[in-house]
C-alpha cells in the first residue's frame, strides 16, 4: 500500500474511479440503445481536438471536449434526416476527426511526447488539472441523468412512442452529448482507441445479469472500478500501456461472463426439462 504515497498513484486511482462512474452510467444507455458504433465515432473524432490543442497550445483535453461534442451533435442532427445512412455518417466523422488530429500533430513543431498516452491511455500520468476536469464532467453527467432518467429510459426503449410524450430529438442529442463527455473522461485512462471498449464492456457484462437499468448502472460502475484498478496494477508492475492492460482485464472478464451466462441458461433449461423450473 506504500505506493499510495505517490501522488501519481493516487491520481491514477482517482482517475480510474471517475472514469468508471461516467462509463457505467452512460455506457448503460449506450448498450441498451445499441449505439455502440456512435460512441466509437465520437471517441475517435476527439483526436482532431487533441491535435488542435497541440498546434494552438491549449489543453488538448479541451479540444477533445469540443470535437466530441461537435461530432455528437452532427451525428444526432444529420443521421435522422430522411435519406441519410447513419452508420455511413458515423464512419465519415470517425475518420475525419482522426485525420485532422494526425495533420495538426504532424505540423506541430517539436516532439509530441505524450501523444501515445492520448491514443492508448496513460493512467499513471494523469495530471491534476485533468482530474479536476473529469470530476466536473462526472458531476454534470450525474445531474443530467438524475433529472432525465425517465425520459432517457423512454427514448432508449421506444423512440417512436417517446415522440408522442416528450421531446425525443432534443433528449437524444443530450444523450449523445453525455456520451461525448464520457469519452473525454476516459481518454486519459484507456486512450481514444480503446474508449469504445470501456463504455461497452462493464455495461455489457451487467446487462447479462440484471433486468433493471438502475442496477445495471451501479453494477457497471463497480465493474469499471475493479477493471481500472486491476489494470492500473498490471500497468505499473509490467510497465505496459494502461489502456491495453485495463481492456485486457475487462475483455477476459467479459468472455468469462458469457461462459457463466451460458452455463446458467443450460442449467435452467435442464431444470425445466426435469420439471424443476
Amino acid at each position, binding site marked *: 500500500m506504500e505506493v499510495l504515497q505517490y501522488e501519481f498513484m493516487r491520481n491514477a486511482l482517482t482517475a480510474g474511479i471517475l472514469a468508471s462512474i461516467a462509463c457505467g452510467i452512460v455506457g448503460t444507455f449506450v448498450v441498451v440503445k445499441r449505439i455502440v458504433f456512435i460512441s466509437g465515432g465520437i471517441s475517435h473524432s476527439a483526436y482532431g481536438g487533441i491535435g488542435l490543442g497541440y498546434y494552438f497550445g491549449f489543453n488538448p483535453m479541451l479540444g477533445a471536449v469540443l470535437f466530441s461534442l461537435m461530432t455528437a451533435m452532427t451525428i444526432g442532427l444529420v443521421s435522422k434526416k430522411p435519406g441519410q445512412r447513419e452508420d455511413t455518417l458515423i464512419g465519415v466523422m470517425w475518420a475525419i476527426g482522426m485525420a485532422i488530429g494526425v495533420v495538426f500533430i504532424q505540423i506541430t513543431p517539436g516532439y509530441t511526447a505524450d501523444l501515445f498516452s492520448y491514443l492508448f491511455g496513460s493512467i499513471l500520468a494523469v495530471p491534476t488539472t485533468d482530474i479536476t476536469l473529469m470530476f466536473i464532467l462526472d458531476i454534470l453527467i450525474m445531474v443530467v441523468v438524475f433529472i432525465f432518467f*425517465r425520459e432517457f429510459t*423512454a427514448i432508449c*426503449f*421506444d423512440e417512436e*412512442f417517446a415522440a*408522442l410524450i416528450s421531446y425525443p430529438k432534443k433528449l437524444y442529442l443530450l444523450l449523445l452529448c453525455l456520451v461525448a463527455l464520457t469519452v473525454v473522461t476516459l481518454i486519459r485512462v484507456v486512450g481514444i482507441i480503446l474508449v469504445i471498449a470501456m463504455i461497452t464492456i462493464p455495461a455489457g457484462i451487467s446487462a447479462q445479469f440484471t433486468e433493471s437499468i438502475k442496477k445495471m448502472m451501479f453494477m457497471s460502475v463497480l465493474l469499471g472500478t475493479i477493471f481500472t484498478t486491476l489494470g492500473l496494477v498490471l500497468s505499473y508492475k509490467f510497465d505496459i500501456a494502461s489502456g491495453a492492460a485495463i481492456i485486457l482485464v475487462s475483455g477476459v472478464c467479459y468472455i468469462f461472463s458469457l461462459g457463466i451466462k451460458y452455463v446458467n441458461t443450460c442449467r435452467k433449461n435442464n431444470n425445466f426439462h426435469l420439471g424443476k423450473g
Partner: protein
Amino acid sequence: MEKVLELKNIWVKFNNNIVLENVNLEVNKADFLGIVGPNGGGKTTLLKVILGFIKPAKGEVRFLGEKREKNLKYFGYVPQYNNFDRQFPISVWEVLVTGRLGQLGMFKQFTHRDKNIVLDALMKVGMLEAKDKSIGKLSGGQIQRVLIARALVMEPKILILDEPTANIDADMENKIYELLLELNSEIPIILVSHDKKVISSYVNRVVHLDRKISDYKEKIAMPSIL
C-alpha cells in the same frame, strides 16, 4: 356526431413512389374504425402520418379541430409488439411510467394519482400481477396487453393500434378485442389489420386502404354469407 380526427388530402411519397394518394378520412367520437388492406398498401404509413412520425408531402391532419402537434400526448399509440428488443432491461411498471411522461411534464414528480392511473390500467388489461416482471419474461400476448396499458395511462383521447393481434392465439385475440370494445365506449379507436374477418366482427366501420382509401363493401355482404 363529434368529429375527433380529420385527414384531408394526404399524399405521401417515398423516392417518387406514391404510397398514399389523396387520402381523406374522418374519425368520430364513437368510431371503432378498422383499416384493412394488402401488405405494402400503406396501412402503417397512414398510422405514422396520423401520429406525426411521417410528414406528408401534401395534406393536413387535424385533431379535435386543432393542429395535431399540441395534442400528440393524447394519441394512445399501440405499436406492433414484435418490434421490441426483448432483452431491454425494463419492468412492466417502468414501461407504464414512460407512458405517463407526457402528462407529468419535465420536472414534475410521479404522484399518488399517477400511481393509481398505472395500477388501474394494469388491472384493465389483466396484468396487475406481472407489474414487476421484466418484459423479457412475457409472452407476445402479455407484451401486447402491456403496450395497450401504456397507451391507456396517457389518458388518451383516441386509441391507435397497429396489428394488435398478429401472432397471438385465438383465445388471447378475443380477450384483446373484448377489451377494446369496452374501451370504445369512451374513446374512438383506429385499428390496422390485414385480418379482415376478425376485424369486421368487432369494429363498427371498415375502410380499405391500398394507396387510396375506399369503403369496404364486403362487410355489408358478410352477414348474409354467415
